[in-house]
């Protein structure tokens, strides 16, 4: 009575297996869409870094986090980025495709680094093992997660350097199949990770060794998804703010004042003029908006350049790397001239913003020109400006360096700028024992608990 049933129940709609590199596109797309979502990178990144502000619906800006964002970031990065990159690694191993495997490891490392920077201790050793029946993985301390990230990036560098295998140019939404650029990304990302933990661990030897490998050498190496001209594959800023007509995201008063202070040509790129034809930022926070003081009309919006549907969705830029190297040199972690790195970082940022002239004059002015005595503040401020469209990284680097100096938002519910995301509530039901252990180890599950590298 069950003749032919097994054949009938074979799915005609979906493949049983795929080439490893076919997974690359969806991993990159999911990662970028989450990172640059106006609710993540905007509300709980850029407004916390005080680059952006809002003239309505600004609870998050006042440190009332949106729980669904906390939840979706955790879910998306684990389920759609790390899990798929792990599948990609397993498939690539079976294929003997070292390049694809190296890319898979790089993407996993990126995912873990984002999550641990946002949440602190997270599952890593036991994570992504649902097929083995592990549905409630233990959390690892952040130092362990960082060890694992660094090891993955080292393996990625070695695997890609070996040159066995290849990538599908079409599905590589970042580099179009150029393995050498992936190698540069892996190594540059490792430098970011090493700098992140430089306050709690001596990273100088590892850093010096990594700098010697291929790393970003220009904006052409930037790790960024190439977004398309139309939704749903356009940059999330465009999709929400422009296409979705949600104009409440504006530029902050601090950004406008800072850029105006340097006559920075990037102001006209980053900010739009208000209804009066001026650049006018809004102080961060303020409970009852819009108001006659701060509303849709009289506060400058996000500049047109950044609402371009094809704005690159940046994972890591050459400019950021230069600022990190400047800091590493200034701190004597690596050899090299901090000023050179610093100036290269500003030039790269200007170039990213489409500015080609007047950069030399800009670099020489007081408040910008490099001085060893004020290196932390100078590098921090310029890096902050360069991260205008990378809210999460801007906030995270502020947490690490305290640069530029920021005061908590007005009418905020906390007296300090958040130090992390709280864990998603779902972990308390699906993974309670592990969650409880993590909270016991790391500290209360609140926005103000500092992560390991921030201590």
């Amino acid at each position: 009575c069950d003749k032919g049933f097994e054949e009938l129940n074979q799915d005609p709609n979906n493949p049983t297996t795929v080439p490893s590199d076919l997974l690359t596109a969806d991993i990159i797309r999911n990662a970028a869409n989450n990172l640059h979502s106006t609710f993540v990178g905007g509300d709980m990144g850029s407004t916390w870094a005080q680059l952006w502000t809002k003239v309505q619906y600004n609870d998050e800006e006042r440190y009332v986090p949106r729980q669904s964002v906390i939840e979706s970031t955790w879910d998306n990065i684990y389920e759609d980025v790390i899990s798929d990159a792990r599948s990609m690694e397993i498939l690539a191993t079976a294929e003997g495709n070292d390049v694809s495997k190296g890319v898979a490891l790089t993407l996993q490392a990126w995912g873990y680094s984002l999550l641990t920077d946002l949440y602190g201790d997270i599952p890593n050793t036991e994570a992504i093992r649902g097929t083995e029946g592990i549905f409630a993985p233990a959390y690892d301390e952040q130092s362990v997660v960082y060890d694992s990230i660094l090891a993955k990036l080292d393996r990625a560098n070695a695997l890609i350097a070996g040159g066995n295998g290849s990538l599908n140019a079409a599905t590589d939404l970042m580099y179009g199949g150029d393995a050498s650029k992936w190698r540069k990304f892996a190594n540059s990302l490792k430098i970011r990770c090493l700098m992140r933990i430089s306050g709690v661990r001596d990273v100088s030897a590892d850093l010096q060794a990594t700098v010697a490998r291929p790393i970003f050498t220009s904006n052409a190496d930037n790790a960024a998804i190439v977004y398309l001209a139309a939704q749903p594959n356009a940059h999330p800023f465009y999709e929400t703010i422009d296409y979705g007509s949600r104009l409440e995201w504006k530029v902050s008063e601090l950004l406008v004042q800072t850029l105006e202070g340097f006559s920075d040509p990037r102001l006209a790129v980053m900010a739009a003029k208000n209804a009066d034809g001026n650049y006018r930022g809004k102080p961060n926070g303020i409970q009852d908006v819009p108001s006659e003081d701060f509303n849709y009309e009289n506060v400058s919006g996000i500049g047109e350049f950044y609402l371009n549907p094809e704005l690159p969705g940046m994972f890591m830029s050459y400019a950021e790397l230069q600022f990190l190297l400047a800091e590493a040199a200034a701190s004597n972690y690596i050899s090299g001239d901090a000023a050179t790195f610093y100036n290269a970082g500003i030039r790269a940022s200007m170039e990213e913003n489409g500015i080609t002239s007047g950069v030399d004059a800009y670099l020489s002015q007081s408040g910008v020109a490099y001085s060893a005595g004020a290196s932390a503040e100078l590098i921090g401020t310029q890096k902050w400006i360069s991260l205008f469209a990378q809210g999460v990284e801007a906030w995270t680097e502020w947490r690490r360096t305290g640069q530029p100096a920021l005061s908590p938002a007005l009418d905020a519910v906390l007296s300090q700028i958040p130090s992390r995301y709280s864990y998603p509530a779902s972990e308390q039901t699906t993974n309670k024992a592990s969650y409880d252990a993590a909270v016991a180890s790391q500290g209360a599950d609140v926005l103000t608990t500092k992560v390991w590298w921030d201590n």
Partner: protein
Amino acid sequence: QRTVSGTVTSAEDGSGIPGVNVVLKGTTTGTTSDLDGNYRLSVPEEGGTLVFSFVGLEPKEVEIGARSVIDVGMSSDVQQLTEVVVTALGIERQEKSLTYAVQDVKGDGLTQARETNIVNSLSGQVAGVQVTSSSGTPGASSRVVLRGASTISGSNQPLFVVDGVPIDNSNYGTAGNGGGYDLPNGAASLNPDDVESISVLKGPVAAALYGNRGANGVILVTTKTGKGKKGLGVSVNSSTMFQTPLRLQDFQNSYGQGASNTYFEFVNGQSGYGDGVDESWGAPLDVGLEFVQWSDYRDDGTTSSPSPWKSYPNNIKDFYETGVQLSNNVAIAGSDGDNAFRLSATNMNQTGMVPNTDFNRWNINSSASLRLLEGLEASFSANYIKEHADNLASIGYTNDNPVQQMIWSGRNVDLAALKDYKNLPLSPEGTAAAGTPLNWNTVFQNNPYWGQDVNLQGYDKDRLIGNVKLAYQFNDWLSAYVRTGIDNWDMRNSNIKAIGTNSAADGFYSDQVRRFTEINHFYMITANKTFGDFGVAVSFGGNNMIQEYTRHYVGVPALELPGLYNVSNLKSGSTPTLINTLEEEKINSLLGTAQLSFRDFVFLDISGRNDWWSVLPKADNSYFYPSASLSFVLTDMLDIYSNALPYLKVRAGWSKVGSSGGLNPYSLQQLYSFRTTPYGSVSLAYNPETLNNPNIKPETTTGIEIGLAAKFFDGRISLDATYYDQTSEDLIVQVEVSPTSGYESAYDNVGLIENKGIELQLGATIVDTKDFSAGLNVNFATYNNDVISVNNIDGDEGAIVLGGQWNVDLQAREGHPYGVLFGPGYLKDEDGNIVHVNGRPQIDPTYRVLGDIQPDWTGGIAVNLRYKGLSLSSLFDAKWGGDIYTMTTTWGRYAGVLAETLKGREEGIVGKGVMQSGTDTDGNPIYVPNNIVVTAETYNKAAFSNGVAEGSVFDASYIKLRQVTLNWKLPSQWFTNVPFKDVNIALVGRNLALLYSKVPHIDPESGFSNADSQQGQEFGQLPSARSMGFNINFKL
């Protein structure tokens, strides 16, 4: 030998009754009456008694004496014990022999009600049946559940079977939180004019023969045939119904749009910084103020002088139109005794209360039976159904739903002035509505009349439900039949959004075709024999089911040219969404049933069915579903029959049935998948987030039921009571796992739900004379539903999310009834007082159960009065207990549009509750009564928002006047010289009045659609309809 002849007529109307058995008592000599009720029989010269009998009529014995002509009038059996009820697999049983709960509804009740969705006509009629109609819009779905929820991942609605053939009752709408549209549920295709009767098999005992499709009970629909008709008959039924909203929100009319109580201005096509404030916390209306408003905006971008700031109390009421529903049916039926046929054509045409919404349905029904040879009968029935809508209404939280902008609105807006949108200026560049006709708000909303006219959800469905049956009667005790039945439909939906639509700035078009086919082959052999005091009826047979479902979807997210809705009109650079799915499954079954009776007062039923299901793992795809039930007719058995208690039966049964839950084909193996929207030209392969389970099993429901049926006082009062206790286990659950495992969920058989309850039906004939009768029918059911387990994590109050909107989930949560509303509530002190800070109610960061959707009981009371040809019937129904989360209240209060937001507009509000005054020595907070005055706006926005749901969860209990019909059967003598006869005129009212409700602003009987996940929640619900009209039917 001599001959006796005569006519058997109905005592009620004098018409001849065909098919009456006429037997000479004590012999095998007998005959049956012909089509006109005439009979002729040879009898002995002397003495003798004739016995006249017919199912449903009181048997009659007449001594022949010396007569040669004996005319007999037969009347309905007052005890109704011989009434025939359709049971599982279409087996007809006398009610007396039933061993489980079955309740039926006659077709004439359905045609009178004139409900377009046949499911609605069950509301209040059958004990234990819960019906929820989603709204009063044309094509709206309705949900029916018997005895509460028994599955978590699958549908809780019963299997619908038409003339022995299972039919699809799915709803493929995309209703809900994010907007979308509801579609008619599958059973809504059925035409009430073609239904002879509906039989409700409420529980697993009655439905045991349906095996793994029986866990939710079964609704058996029998369509009309020509059998039993005399000659050729034509009947015509025409009805006209008018629909108006039963209930609209109660709006305030004292304050207009904006956030400033002194100022408003509409400039540059927007209302200044206030345009982000599509709310009514603005300046007072009707006090002589004047502001520049939307209606003062001119084509050239300038504005004319300010206009009076005044209220439009009926602006929303006037938005709705009177819905019209026309239904016309013509049926021809005939029989010559051996062969019979029926042909019926019906058109139902409906226009909605929301402008430019409609729904049309054509039903062509045909059936015939032919006696090919002695004992060999061939029959078929075919229902062709065509459904069409130019535009079904948008629903849910979307600016495509016109009701949304009534809730986010300026109360100063003259909606009617927006209607002539073709002569309005266009919204200027820089606004979201740029290029589309002006609206009072151009940032969040489009002109609602324009939206209704240009943004269309088209719908078409073509369906054939039919079967062919060949039956052979070998002899007087052995028969067999084979039957093949099919339910086949094609459905097309298109969705148009014009360029400039708020939810799709570049326009949108999608076209989707679904096809579904289910074919069932049945074969059965039945033996029916009496051995002395014992009766045996045994059937054995099989069923092969094959189901195929395909779906093709093309969606274009942006249009190149305006006004052209074709997938080729894809905007350059954008990417279409492409979906194409094929699913196939089979179930092979063997089944058997036996009923043993002793002296017609003890009945034992046993049955078994074995199903082999293709979706299950090869090694474990065979499941057996048994049942056993027993009844005793105590009045006969103990010989205690009396006029006061002519009938008393007790019954008990046990059964195990199954359910597929949410298990679909291809759920065993882990596969990769492609996103349906590629990245430009790049395909997106991914690893799905749900982990399949190669060892999955079907769900099982095991239940007992006990009951009694009694009649009192010559059968004038009847009572039927049932108690049931059912356990549904191995429920297939997508167990939520930590995403850190790489998966969001994993399939497992871990759910367990218990259902217990009581069902009562009481019928009373209070007066019954030739000219006047009065009767009463009462039904009542209680429910006790308990979700015992949804996952396998010990000590955790596990929960599975069924659906939800904003941050409120509808969940199956352990230790609670199925369908709890789980979300953020107010922060409270130990005594339950709401904690305020700076005068604002605080939100408890820990989400909790705020209510549940399960009623405590449901009931209905039908009162039927007749005086001569005039009959009046009314039906009241009630649902008691259960909650609803109404975001209409949330946003309506947040936005200051509802009447209750007038409180404290001038003087402010002191929230009822406490505030912290300090801390005690242990560091615990000390609370004192809150005394901080805040503005009404501040209070309402703190107390009602998407951040806190508790204030918008209400007890959904209601009592409704469901139906009133006044039917006049015109005296037959008026029609002696015209071709008409049996003329009835009826005035009909449905959903007439909400007599009791604790929910403000909306009909508590609301849900987004008939899907389980969409119950107990609403936002911007299109109102339910109060339907009134008339119905005329006559025969030719």
